[in-house]
């Protein structure tokens, strides 16, 4: 059930209607049932995976709370991590490891034919697995207390607005909202509507429309494209993935808000950042903070000197890349960002706030960071590393701005331009909800623009949310 489908619209209306009639406890029961229905529409068989993950982490959490022996606590934590990562490894990475093992063996002169498993990737497994793991690790670190409320914990794991593509919420942010009665009020509807509308606009109008151009540029038969068309294809993908994923996150935030929940902001104008460090504080914030807290810091963080800190950084980002998908292109993307972050740490730079530096310098830094990000996206989107080199070669050494490149540029300007200026305005205001506080006439025009674009500019072909595959 996609957020941008009529089925979800009907489903959500029914949930909101019933929700408004129920007591707090029954609201939670309804949300848990609705979350299971929501997930079950993709593949009901994989509900058992969510239930298993929920029960394992609930029980381990309770045991960790009671247990005082360090070694037993460590064993409990390892058990939980093994179950969660085991499921992830089996469903997401087994075929990748099998094919890489076969390649390695044959390069050593031992040709083998290993069986490829016929496995479907359960939607959202990377997201809910990381969410439940953060719960257990936080209890292990005595940062949070284990809950004895299985209903609330189950809802924390499977809450439908953020179940399949995040944000990866922390237990101390969501569980209290589940356990306490939520506030009702017109403000929830007002803010929820804003998030849903802008999310749909980003996803359907920008993301899905640019998807057609991106698919063409990265398709194997397009190997004779000009450097300009490739460059526009990479730009288009940068905006497509941002619009798609931040659009999803906004709809998640909006639907949760209708129900009285506050989800975190997962994006804060990432293409207006000046350096890799700022970028990762603005892009997929729930994942980058997860990687920092549960991977980078346990690896040693920056506690053991500069060299080890850089190693930890690169390793964290490469694993973060692998989290996105079982392919070397994702690892290369993560590695590339690890290198960028490392260089940024090594080079002395000013940490002046954006408003204190000159316009020319600010835009120079933004443009540089955007293009570095685009090189990363090239690794991310390419079907193979050889395609990366081919596209880079064409853009750098054989640049030609032909008709297809002009079409790409036109599509980007027409669809992304208004969003770009809107986000620039929000960034200047330093307030992501500034539109909600603006004059109603301004809001009316902005909403009319988004609704009109949603009606009049349907995508060329419908696309699922990109991050569902991760």
């Amino acid at each position, binding site marked *: 059930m996609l957020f941008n489908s009529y089925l979800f619209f009907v489903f959500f209306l029914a949930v909101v209607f019933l929700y408004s009639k129920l007591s707090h406890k029954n609201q939670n029961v309804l949300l848990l049932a609705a979350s299971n229905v929501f997930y079950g529409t993709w593949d009901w068989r994989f509900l058992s995976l969510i239930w298993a993950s929920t029960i394992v982490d609930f029980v381990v959490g309770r045991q960790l709370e009671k247990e005082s022996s360090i070694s037993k606590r460590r064993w409990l934590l390892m058990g939980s991590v093994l179950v969660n990562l085991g499921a992830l490894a089996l469903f997401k990475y087994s075929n990748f490891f099998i094919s890489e093992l076969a390649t390695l063996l044959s390069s050593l002169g031992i040709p083998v034919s290993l069986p490829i498993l016929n496995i479907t990737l359960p939607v959202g497994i990377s997201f809910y697995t990381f969410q439940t793991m953060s719960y257990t690790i936080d209890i292990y670190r005595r940062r949070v207390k284990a809950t004895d409320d299985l209903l609330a914990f189950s809802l924390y794991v499977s809450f439908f607005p953020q179940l399949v593509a995040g944000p990866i919420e922390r237990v101390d942010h969501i569980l209290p909202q589940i356990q306490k009665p939520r506030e009702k009020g017109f403000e929830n509807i007002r803010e929820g509507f804003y998030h849903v509308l802008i999310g749909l606009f980003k996803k359907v109008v920008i993301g899905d429309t640019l998807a*057609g151009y991106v698919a063409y540029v990265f398709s194997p038969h397009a190997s004779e494209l000009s450097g300009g068309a490739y460059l526009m294809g990479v730009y288009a993908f940068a905006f497509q993935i941002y619009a798609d994923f931040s659009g999803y996150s906004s709809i998640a935030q909006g639907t949760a808000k209708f129900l009285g929940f506050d989800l975190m902001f997962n994006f804060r104008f990432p293409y207006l950042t000046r350096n890799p460090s700022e970028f990762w504080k603005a892009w997929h914030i729930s994942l980058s903070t997860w990687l920092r807290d549960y991977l980078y810091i346990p690896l040693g963080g920056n506690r053991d000197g500069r060299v080890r800190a850089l190693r930890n950084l690169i390793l964290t980002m490469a694993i973060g890349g692998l989290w996105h998908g079982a392919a070397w292109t994702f690892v290369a993307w993560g590695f590339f960002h690890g290198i960028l972050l490392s260089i940024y740490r090594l080079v002395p730079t000013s940490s002046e706030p954006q408003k204190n530096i000159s316009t020319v310098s600010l835009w120079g830094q933004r443009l540089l960071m955007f293009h570095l990000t685009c090189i990363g996206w090239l690794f991310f989107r390419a079907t193979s590393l050889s395609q990366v080199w081919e596209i880079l070669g064409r853009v750098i050494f054989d640049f030609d701005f032909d008709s297809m490149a002009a079409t790409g540029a036109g599509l980007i300007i027409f669809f992304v331009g208004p969003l770009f200026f809107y986000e620039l305005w929000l960034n200047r205001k330093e307030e992501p909800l500034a539109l909600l506080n603006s004059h109603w006439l301004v809001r009316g025009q902005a909403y009319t623009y988004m609704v009109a674009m949603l*009606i009049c500019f349907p995508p060329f072909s419908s696309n699922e949310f990109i991050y569902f595959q991760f």
Partner: protein
Amino acid sequence: MSLFTSNFKQEAAVLLIIMVSLLSAESVLRLNQDRLSLDLAHFNSLKTLPRRLASGTDQRILVFGNSLSREGIDVDLLRETLSQNEKTTSVEKAILDASSSPDWYFLLKNTVLGYGAKPNVLLIGITDLHVPDQIPVDSGRLAQVLTRSEDLPLLFEKLFLTLDQRADFLLSKASFLFAMRKRIRDRTLAAIVPGFRKNVNELNRTAYLKGQKSIRAQDYFFFEQLVKEASQSVPCTVFVPIPLPHPYSIPEKVRKIIQSHGGHLIKTETDVSYSLEQFEDGYHMNKGSSAAFTRRILPQLQKILSEGCNA
């Protein structure tokens, strides 16, 4: 707590702005249909079809199909040649761009016959791609101009099977703006995005090839309905396979459907490769090849007509 706070009033005003804007756009579009799309302008001109296919004429031929038929069959040549044997002949077109058998069925039933036109020969241009039910249809055009309320059960049973498709269709029925959204998109982008008109076909081809993977079995329900409707209402129905740049053959199932309802299928050698130069834009025949193609089908058509259309 009262709902009628200042925030509520402001949001009501915001909603009012949206509604007024959308209703204005709806009215403007309804009043300017012909300027929005040549296709719609042509459709609206079909109201005069009964007059143009005058019943006093000996041969009243209606060329039917999509843009492949419009560009592929030379109507003037057809009229000129068929008028030579002392018979008065009128030839008209009922063409819908990017249409296929579901569109043609409803166009024949509700528009051509519904307006009271009485062609005695229906010349329908087909290809293997445009006869199955599975080809994507323009639900907006079907909803706004081609179907009636009584067609809804059939559409929901055979064509719009998912909730999303049905909702799209119903919204298109309710709103002209929603129904015409793809036309608005294409016209706007063609006007402001450089090279869009030239490159969009190439972009669509990638999307089409991607979509093709999901198509398995082919059904011909609407094609059969079209043939049935034509055989009951029009004395003579002739199907003309229109050449494409790539070779193709008409599926056996389609041949059987035509045969079982007394229709005629002209042999046009579509199973051989044509030269790309014969196609104006890589898809539609140019003027020269259209005339040559029409000359090639004329003897077969004349034979069918001279034999009184007996299959």
